């Protein structure tokens, strides 16, 4: 498809055009930039809900059920589901869709995304991919992260409401005290609520939250059993509460901060690429060898390279 053709189609909410744009963005093709520039003013209209948590916690199933609930309440929904890329082959098996049968059957747009080496729980292009999906005219975008570890907290830079899914059996209460993923949850979910230990985990999480300083928004804890749908309506209600709490005002302040941060990132990346082209790979190689031979230390090497 030609670039102009894609832009025209995007403006009509064409599914193929959106799917193709997602590919262009993922592949970091030049025309993706052209298209994004062109459609930017039409994007930003969906409420972004992020779902994160360890592998196998039930994120995909929860996303599926949330999508269905939202649809039944008259929303239009899009889903981005990120899975890890193999660090060895560069390939990926993207299996989130497998758990998203009811969303799929209802015609909800689902895109499986490989992280392509990016750390933090998302792909480097996830933000732009959300914008691309918004061309479908959806008012809700659900973003599922890769099975996240303790430090994979990038979703908080993307989502308006972040849901952290935990399951019983993964550790004692000290785990709940650690910094990282638990801190980013606007809503905490204890999934597999029918399993032994679910009540205890809920108590431990409540304890952890009560120890922290009082916040304006206190993250609720919702117990769910995604396999039978129990607790999902409550979760949906909590999402609405959080959305109402944010209102347009807080949401926009939050989004502005992110755009700031994102802009810094983009600028530093572009500068980096520009500088690297200017220096050339060879120079880095030579410097590395000198560092290895102890002719120069790495800190001075960096200074020297930057000055060049």
């Amino acid at each position, binding site marked *: 498809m030609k670039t102009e053709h894609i832009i025209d189609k995007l403006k009509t909410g064409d599914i193929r055009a959106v*799917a*193709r744009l997602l590919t262009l963005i993922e592949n970091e093709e030049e025309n993706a930039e052209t298209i994004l520039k062109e459609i930017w003013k039409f994007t930003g209209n969906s409420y972004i809900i992020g779902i994160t948590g360890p592998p196998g916690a039930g994120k995909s199933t929860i996303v599926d059920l949330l999508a269905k609930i939202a649809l039944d309440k008259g929303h239009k929904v899009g889903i981005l589901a990120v899975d890890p890329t193999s660090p*060895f082959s560069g390939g990926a098996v993207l299996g989130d*869709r*497998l758990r998203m049968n009811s969303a799929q059957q209802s015609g909800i747009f689902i*895109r499986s995304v490989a992280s392509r080496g990016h750390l933090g729980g998302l792909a480097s292009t996830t933000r732009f991919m959300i914008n691309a999906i918004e061309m479908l005219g959806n008012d809700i975008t659900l973003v599922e992260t890769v099975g996240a570890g303790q430090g994979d907290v990038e979703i908080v830079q993307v989502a308006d409401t972040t849901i952290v899914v935990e399951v019983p059996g993964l550790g004692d209460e000290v785990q709940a005290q650690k910094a990282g993923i638990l801190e980013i949850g606007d809503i905490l979910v204890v999934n597999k609520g029918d399993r032994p230990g679910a009540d205890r985990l809920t108590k431990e999480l409540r304890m952890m939250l009560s120890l922290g300083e009082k916040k304006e928004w206190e993250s609720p804890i919702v117990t769910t059993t995604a396999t039978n749908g129990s607790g999902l309506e409550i979760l949906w209600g909590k999402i609405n509460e959080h959305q109402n709490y944010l209102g347009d005002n807080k949401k926009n302040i939050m989004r502005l901060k992110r755009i700031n941060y994102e802009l810094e990132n983009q600028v530093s990346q572009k500068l980096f690429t520009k500088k690297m082209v200017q220096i050339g790979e060879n120079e880095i190689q030579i410097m590395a060898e000198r560092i290895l031979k102890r002719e120069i230390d790495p800190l001075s090497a960096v200074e020297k390279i930057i000055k060049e």
Partner: protein
Amino acid sequence: MSKKGKIRVLIAKPGLDGHDRGAKVIARALRDSGMEVIYTGLRQSPEDIVEAAIQEDVHFIGLSILSGAHSHIFPRIVELLNERKAGDIKIIAGGIIPNEEIPKWKKIGIEAIFGPGSSTIEIVDYINGSVN
């Protein structure tokens, strides 16, 4: 494809048989060769498969069918892809497809059929060759 482009393949098991070992072996082999595989699981209808393939913007749909349902499913998927103007998405298939039928299926647009005994390398090479 650009330098950063990846081959994307949708692996689906239409029909009612529940043996997805083959589909999983293929998914794994494609992953290990650097492709992105969208695995959709058992009992997918042709409509589901085509919709998923379009949303995922894949190069290939890989179908695994052991039940004999292919004689209904192959033409239906081809038809749906054409209806959606997505005829550029190629179809390959594996499972139990009688040899004497292969020319017939190739004619309607099944690009390649890999029966029992096919090596995963053969399949990977075929897809690589066909995309690049």
